[in-house]
């Protein structure tokens, strides 16, 4: 015997789950879906079942005492994945509560066997397994009874070539439950509570025969079903572009700015536009999007403003309406960065977009669930890297409290994450607030070091000249020089 057994992997039909599992669900595996009540176990099981079941590979969903089957059918059919036409054709619901009530697990097993013989399912679900545990204790009162039951069930299902799922609540991770030993796969669903915020998380703690993605991954349940958000690097796997991406730098759409940047924004670069409130960051971003549209490129903008319609200008709205720019509106709260990455990447793929705008990091951070706050910087780094990997250029705006005592670019250390930085500042001259802008960094590019005045008018940003007659601009209150000298004030 030199050839290995071939393990086919089933597509679960749950968005993002196959990536986490390591390429799908191994056929004929014996799996446990565990988690507390309300964590989405039955929903996950149903979604997988309706996606995988066919008349040739039917599924049996055994319901045990837990949730009354009528209620389960009533609620589960609210999801889009619930195909009513599949019921009694490729999906069979069978209730075991009458047998389970006796506590005689032999009888239960016999009933399961009979059903399996009758329908020859390729997929078997038992929900909820907690009831089996309780029944076994009520019956013979021995833990071995349960273990034997599980082992026999596992053996039976494998022999009958069925991929099996036990759905269980109240399993404790620390409890050396014999069921865990027998299982090939173990999927935990959790609800992580931090203050007033609840985030759903999924973890594959065991998946025999393949490399699943370790760690907890956020997911959401909507009327469409479950959507799991894999980490950014995994989400772009297989789509990597040549590094650096080919093509001329992207034009920013603001006259004079490309020259300041040494020719524009190199493809695949991330650009941080930092500045105080009202300095024109979003206006710059809208130039960036409009220029993309003018050049025949498509873009995606993720808006994290509380009232996006107010903050977005007309030109960008028109681009969104015309479909050249896709708008990603993240759910209101309890976000994870991976979730936003998933939504962004989906739109980037759909439009084959080359430009992405995140407006703003400050709003983004406010919407991220508290449980992810500490990891915000790392997650952001992974997101930006993933976007760069597929050759997309990213413009991020960041609100910066204007402190005139130091030169800062971002409260998140995002300056380090990005390839290019443009900073905008206010200065006071003759009792007026004027705006200045500088290109602080464009990695591997000979960019300008000029601090240039700019104005915002009905056409957007108009970059003016330097103010060589003033000094101390970054201090916010420049003073007029007594006499000109030729020192170049630019530095770093």
């Amino acid at each position, binding site marked *: 015997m030199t050839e290995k057994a071939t393990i086919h992997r089933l597509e679960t039909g749950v968005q993002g789950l196959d990536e986490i599992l390591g390429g799908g669900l191994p056929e004929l595996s014996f799996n446990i879906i565990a988690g507390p009540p309300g964590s989405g176990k039955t929903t996950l099981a149903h979604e997988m079942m309706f996606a995988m079941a066919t008349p040739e590979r039917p599924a049996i969903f055994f319901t045990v005492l837990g949730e009354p089957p009528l209620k389960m059918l*009533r609620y589960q059919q609210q999801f889009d994945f619930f195909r009513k036409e599949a*019921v*009694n054709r490729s999906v069979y619901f069978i209730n075991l509560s009458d047998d389970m009530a006796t506590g005689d697990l032999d009888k239960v097993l016999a009933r399961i066997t009979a059903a399996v013989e009758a329908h020859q399912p390729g997929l078997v679900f038992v929900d909820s397994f907690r009831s089996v545990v309780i029944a076994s204790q009520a019956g013979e009162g021995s833990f071995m009874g349960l273990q034997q039951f599980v082992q026999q069930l596992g053996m039976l299902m494998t022999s009958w070539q069925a991929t099996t799922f036990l759905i269980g609540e109240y399993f404790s991770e620390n409890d050396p439950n014999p069921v865990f030993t027998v299982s090939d796969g173990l999927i935990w669903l959790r609800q992580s509570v931090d203050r007033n915020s609840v985030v759903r998380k999924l973890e594959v703690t065991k998946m025999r025969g393949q490399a699943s993605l370790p760690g907890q991954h956020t997911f959401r349940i909507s009327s469409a079903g479950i959507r799991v958000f894999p980490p950014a690097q995994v989400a772009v796997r297989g789509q990597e572009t040549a590094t650096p991406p080919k093509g001329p730098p992207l034009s920013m759409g603001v006259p004079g700015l490309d020259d300041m940047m040494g020719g524009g924004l190199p493809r695949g670069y991330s650009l941080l536009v930092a500045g105080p409130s009202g300095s024109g960051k979003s206006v710059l971003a809208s130039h960036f999007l409009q220029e993309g549209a003018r050049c025949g490129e498509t873009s995606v903008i993720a808006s994290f403003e509380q009232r996006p319609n107010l903050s977005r200008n007309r030109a960008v709205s028109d681009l969104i309406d015309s479909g050249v720019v896709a708008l990603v509106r993240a759910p209101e709260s309890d976000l994870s960065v991976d979730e936003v990455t998933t939504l962004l990447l989906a739109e980037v793929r759909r439009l084959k977009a080359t430009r992405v705008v995140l407006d703003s990091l400050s709003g983004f951070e406010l919407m991220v669930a508290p449980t992810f706050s500490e990891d915000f910087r790392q997650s952001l780094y992974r997101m930006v890297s993933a976007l760069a990997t597929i050759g997309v250029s990213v413009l991020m705006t960041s609100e910066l409290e204007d402190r005139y005592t130091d030169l800062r670019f971002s409260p998140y250390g995002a300056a380090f994450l990005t390839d290019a930085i443009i900073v905008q500042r206010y200065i006071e001259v003759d009792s007026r607030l004027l705006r200045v802008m500088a290109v602080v960094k464009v990695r591997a590019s000979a960019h300008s070091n000029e601090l240039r005045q700019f104005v915002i008018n009905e056409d957007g940003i108009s970059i003016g000249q330097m103010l060589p007659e003033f000094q101390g601009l970054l201090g916010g209150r420049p003073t007029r020089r007594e006499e000109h000298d030729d020192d170049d004030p630019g530095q770093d």
Partner: protein
Amino acid sequence: MGGTSKGTDPNLDFLVVGGHEAARVAEATDTTLRAIDAVLSPIISERGMAALYRRSLFLIRQERPWLDPAYAADAAPGDYEALRSALAGQADADALQGAGALLSTFHGLLVSLIGQSLTDRLLGSIWDQTFSSGAAVQDVSP
């Protein structure tokens, strides 16, 4: 004509086939309930089916005191003998009307819980095939 069109109430025409005799109505009702039982009990358990049946009886018996014995009967799940006796003992028109009310109520109850389309999916064949032509009633006549 034939059976229930999707999304409508069950067609109970089969109850009147073969005349309005109470005994025939009782027989057809019993057969129908057992057919429903055979479909639903595996899915929602025998007790789940029995609960729906008793709820339906409860809802229609207020206007039909003659159904009280059927409701009070301590019948095992799947045993519709008490109902059958009650129906058979009525005037033909009352039996027909009572049986129709019971099956319609049962159907409506299920629809309220799991929706019309899933109810049709599960029970449609009973209305459509078993009794649509009325021939089945004659098949089971004594």
